């Protein structure tokens, strides 16, 4: 659906001659579509920017949206699309706002300012521009989602020191393989860095424990043991305890506690007993 050089020239001529009218009508239609979610002035600026880059591109011989001369036009379309994606406008709204230009062209045709044949040809270009913004929009949103997933991964796996030589990992949310791996690495690294011989894995925030999640937790515990640290699993809710038994998951000799407080008490008693036993000996 490429334009010929001649058609491109006619488009530039049209956009330049009726510049004020095109920008005004285009802004009006989009404003009606967005129902005031973007201020008229801001919208007008963006439309003007698009209008200007279309003329610039046309002057250099705009034949196709993918051609080299349309670089600047693509850049302003991408910028508009990215901005709207971040502000929470839908992909359809972004694309339809561009298609509003077709309505403007049609209105011009009705008053006889432009031939109907040209409207169809220019419409093809506008379609391409719309699809381009759609694509950019999707890319931007995918980038956002990827960023957020990464942030979530970082936020959701804190390892906190709750006592001398005791670290805790409060797990929140579903535990998949990727997260389990991150949790395991963080925990083990923290054990080395802080020299803590005790770790508590708290699963209060884990909505469901299936065999896979249990497997991940068990692996972490075994790895911690290999490094010389003892792991306790805490925060097992009644339903989860029932599921664990129903699934036949064996935690073996790994200590499990109902709450984080119980786990901490257990650890303190382990270390406390040693201290309590030695003191009377020294006195004697």
């Amino acid at each position: 659906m490429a334009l010929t050089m001649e058609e491109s020239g006619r488009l530039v001529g049209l956009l330049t001659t009726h510049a004020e009218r095109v920008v005004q009508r285009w802004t009006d239609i989009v404003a009606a579509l967005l129902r005031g979610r973007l201020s008229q002035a801001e919208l007008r600026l963006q439309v003007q920017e698009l209008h200007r880059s279309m003329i610039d591109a046309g002057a250099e011989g705009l034949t196709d949206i993918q051609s080299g001369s349309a670089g600047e036009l693509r850049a302003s379309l991408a910028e508009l699309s990215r901005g709207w994606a971040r502000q929470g406008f839908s992909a359809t709204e972004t694309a339809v706002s561009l298609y509003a230009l077709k309505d403007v062209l049609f209105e011009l045709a009705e008053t006889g300012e432009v031939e109907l044949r040209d409207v169809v040809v220019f419409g093809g270009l506008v379609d391409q521009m719309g699809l381009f913004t759609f694509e950019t929009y999707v890319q931007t949103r995918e980038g956002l989602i990827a960023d957020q997933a990464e942030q979530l991964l970082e936020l959701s796996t804190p390892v906190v020191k709750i006592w001398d030589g005791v670290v805790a990992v409060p797990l929140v949310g579903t535990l998949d393989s990727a997260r389990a791996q991150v949790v395991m690495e963080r925990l083990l690294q923290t054990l080395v860095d802080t020299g803590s011989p005790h770790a508590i894995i708290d699963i209060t925030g884990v909505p469901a424990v299936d065999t896979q999640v249990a497997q991940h937790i068990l692996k972490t515990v075994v790895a911690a043991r290999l490094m010389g640290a003892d792991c306790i699993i805490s925060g097992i809710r009644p339903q989860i305890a029932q599921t664990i038994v129903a699934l036949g998951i064996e935690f073996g000799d790994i200590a499990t506690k109902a709450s984080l407080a119980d786990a901490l008490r257990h650890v303190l008693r382990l270390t406390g007993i040693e201290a309590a036993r030695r003191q009377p000996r020294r006195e004697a």
Partner: protein
Amino acid sequence: MERVPVLKIGDILLVSIQIDMSDQTALALQEDLAERIVEIGAHGVVIDITALDIVDSFVGRMLSTIASISKVLDAETVVVGMRPAVAITLVELGLSLNGIRTALNVERGMKLIAASRENDLGHDEEVKDPEPGQAATSA
């Protein structure tokens, strides 16, 4: 052939593995250790693997063998300083190094041996007095 030095600290032997283990070095280490344990009557062996980036099944088996040998000679083996990456790899391989005690660092490893020794002695004394027959079976 490279040899792994065996250091004596009190009645504990410290082995720090800093080279890639081959069959030869592993065998030599086992022999050296067994001799030294008998020689000084050591009751604990601390094996430091902080410097090891890779622990494969071969090294895993060597550690198990050393632990078994030491146990026969009444010395406890503690493997210390395993890196997180190594621990993860071992777990993924399904090697859990059964029968080997572990600690985070050399210091904690030596404390562990001292504590368990103290425990054993205390336990023996407690049991011996009231019922001598019980101590014989538990020892």
